[in-house]
């Protein structure tokens, strides 16, 4: 698996060879800062934890992570460098992994640079640093899921704008599926159907529970649902497994898509 490391190193260096990396990191930090201190009310809450930071991360990722992932494959196809890369003695899977890890480390660096918030909280109070650490680990793993989706969308097209929009929409669906607005609406919707008068009494209860099951199922597939436990500092193996499966699935899909383009 040595080629993976070689590709990761090259990719990571190329992020910092252009202003893109610095622009991204600065914008990420400015926005997370604004969200944490103004929207999240870090000071006003008078609680020493990082919840105001983590709460807004999925929404921050939604806009910024597709901006990182859009170039992964679309740019290689555009410049033709993909032909150079894939005719080296490596497999497509190694190339997919190498590029994914570089993007993941890059977003990880941006995430780590929010450490002043952690210092602030520690200065002002006595937070549960274990929970803070768990939150950071979870936030990093969730970034991987967003990136894997983005990698897959970038493998679909030569156009970075299209790659961005596709990744944004897919991630938005995956995030929103667990948002209370959606789950409440879904429950109300099925409740409404169940209340129609022509169902028998037994059927009504069945429809109601089927609706709840569907709502929970959709919410269970959501990034948000799985991150909500993590950001409170609860690192549940099931949540980590969920994100790991999302990552593996979308990276495999990227590989399949790239290989399929060869025989187009």
């Amino acid at each position, binding site marked *: 698996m*040595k080629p993976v490391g070689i*590709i990761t190193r090259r990719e990571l260096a190329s992020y910092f*060879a252009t202003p893109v990396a610095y622009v991204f990191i600065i914008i990420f930090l400015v926005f997370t800062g604004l969200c944490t201190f103004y929207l999240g009310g870090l000071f006003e809450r008078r609680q020493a934890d990082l919840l105001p930071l983590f709460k807004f991360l999925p929404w921050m990722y939604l806009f910024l992570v597709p901006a990182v992932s859009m170039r992964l494959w679309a740019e290689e196809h555009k410049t033709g*460098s993909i032909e*150079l890369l894939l*005719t080296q*003695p*490596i497999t497509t899977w190694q190339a997919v992994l190498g590029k994914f890890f570089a993007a993941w480390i890059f977003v990880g660096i941006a995430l780590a640079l929010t450490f002043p918030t952690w210092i602030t909280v520690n200065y002002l109070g006595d937070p549960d640093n274990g929970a803070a650490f768990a939150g950071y680990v979870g936030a990093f793993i969730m970034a991987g899921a967003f990136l894997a989706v983005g990698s897959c969308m970038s493998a679909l097209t030569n156009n970075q704008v299209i790659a961005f929009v596709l990744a944004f929409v897919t991630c938005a669906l995956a995030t929103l599926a667990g948002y209370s607005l959606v789950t409440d609406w879904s429950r109300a919707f099925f409740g409404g159907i169940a209340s129609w008068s022509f169902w028998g009494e037994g059927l009504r209860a069945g429809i109601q529970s089927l609706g709840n099951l569907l709502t929970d199922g959709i919410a269970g597939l959501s990034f948000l649902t799985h991150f909500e436990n993590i950001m409170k500092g609860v690192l549940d193996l099931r949540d980590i497994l969920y994100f790991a499966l999302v990552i593996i699935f979308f990276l495999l899909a990227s590989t399949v898509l790239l290989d399929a383009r060869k025989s*187009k």
Partner: protein
Amino acid sequence: MIKTQNLTKNYQGLLAVDNLSFSAEPGEVLGFLGPNGAGKTTTMRMIAGFVAPTSGSASICGHDVATEPLAAKTVLGYLPEGAPTYGEMTVAGFLDFIANLRALTGENRKSRLDYVIGRLQLEPVLQQTIDTLSKGFKRRVGLAQAIVHDPKVLILDEPTDGLDPMQKHEVRTLIGEIAREKTIVISTHILEEVDAVCTRAIIIAHGRLVADDTPSGLKSRAPSGRLEDVFRSVAA
């Protein structure tokens, strides 16, 4: 050596390469000629494993490109059309990256890198990013990448495109120099190049093989004895 058998590529109804079978042996420099759009690049991409054939097969040194891609790619040096590289990298950084992927180590790595840098006169631009280089330098960086691991088989898609006459001469001399124990295929539409470097030439038109001969054999086919006339008559 390179061998293709009934290689065919059909791009959604457009037959780019049609039942192409040929082989090239070590010591040969095979010129791959044909008008634009004849299927030269598609054929080379299929041999390099970047494009999957619709039917037929290609092998490099006995390794089938479809079933043993890694073994085939390991012995191959390939210059893709347009010599793509990573523009934001420096020349030194880029060659280092390729040497890593080619698993070159120790003394051999250093001597191979020194050789390609010297032979393709890349010293003055080693620390420059590739984006800032002239077309001629970019092409030579692409060539350096293709030969750095001393491959047994070389496939070069228009290696002298964009070079000035001096650089063209240099590259042809280089190809002649390394040709002895290697199998080399170069595509070109510059006919003088065939005379200058090739031991054999094949002409394809509309994806089909229309001539396969030595340069002098080809020339004798036209009353005028000029390669250009042969090319025009068979490629039409």
